[in-house]
């Protein structure tokens, strides 16, 4: 298990009311979450399994989110940050995006908000299963 630091970043985007968010790990991972991955300000940090975070980020650092369908970069970053249990709540526009898509994104088929404990998104289930070590 690779335990390390997971950091969420907020980046002000010209002409947009909400900050773009992305995530980095102390192991050198950079997950752009649909956008830029440099020049942001650290807005949350926590300790967690970085291998699991990388698994959760797949594919393409989109973490299973359909952009503007089931979430935006805020929900994508929250999913990747899940092993550290922190959120990109310091990003501008975050509360509006949670109002629309929830903390971890929404399921289009049922309209329910995803939750690690109560209604895990498919990628979370897959990553938890494949990263259980004896």
């Amino acid at each position, binding site marked *: 298990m690779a335990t390390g630091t997971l950091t969420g970043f907020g980046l002000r985007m010209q002409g947009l009311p909400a900050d773009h968010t992305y995530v980095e790990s102390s192991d050198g991972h950079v997950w752009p979450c649909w956008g830029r991955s440099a020049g942001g300000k650290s807005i949350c940090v926590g300790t967690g399994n970085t291998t699991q975070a990388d698994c959760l980020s797949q594919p393409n650092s989109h973490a299973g989110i359909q952009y503007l369908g089931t979430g935006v970069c805020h929900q994508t970053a929250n999913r990747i940050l899940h092993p550290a249990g922190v959120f990109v709540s310091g990003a501008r*526009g975050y509360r509006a995006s949670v*109002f629309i898509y929830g*903390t971890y994104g929404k399921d289009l088929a049922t309209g329910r908000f995803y939750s690690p404990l109560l209604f895990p998104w498919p990628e979370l289930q897959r990553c938890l299963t494949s990263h259980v070590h004896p």
Partner: protein
Amino acid sequence: MDMEREFDKRIAAIHGLDRTAHVAGNIEESAMHTRHEEFQAMTSVFLGDDFDRGKLWLVESLQRALHERQTELYRLFESHELAPDEYVESLNTLLADTFAACEVILGTENFVKLFGAPRSELAGFVDRDTFLQANQPHEINSLTAEETDTSDTAQSDVTNILEALSHLSETEQHIIRLLYFEKLSSDEIAQALDLKVSNVIKIRQRVTKKLGKLRDIERRVG
């Protein structure tokens, strides 16, 4: 404790991340109410527990209506009844209308307290460019296999990519195969090739830059 931290704490408790929090009741039943619990956490923290329940009920009704309409719009987009641009425009209008109605119900001051920004700053919330970029392959995906095979543009893309691939080192080619065709993570690739994760990430970034169209390949193959 500031309000943002309190909000995080409440959300963590809802999702079982706060190990000290007790999750009450039936898990399946609670899952149905995650949206409601998140809404309650947000209104409780930012508007206070004494806030007018009638107004909150109205705002929550708007939220439910927003979700239903957004899902409907996205389905229209997925079934190609709405073009990407039309989806973005419709969603922006829906959000503007919803936030405007929320402001009427809550008043300007409480709207800012709840959403953390004035309504004017939430206008145009949607990142149109990111959506259009993300959904470019969506249109390619919608082509039938036959159409893809006979498309000059697609053939030209594939030729360009194969040509570009031939200029990569053996390790780079190996990483591309594992990353894009076998869907391994950087950690798994590092393990498979006995490389440091940081090296895999560097090579991955370099290769992705070289081959800007790899995402197209991944979506077509995947």
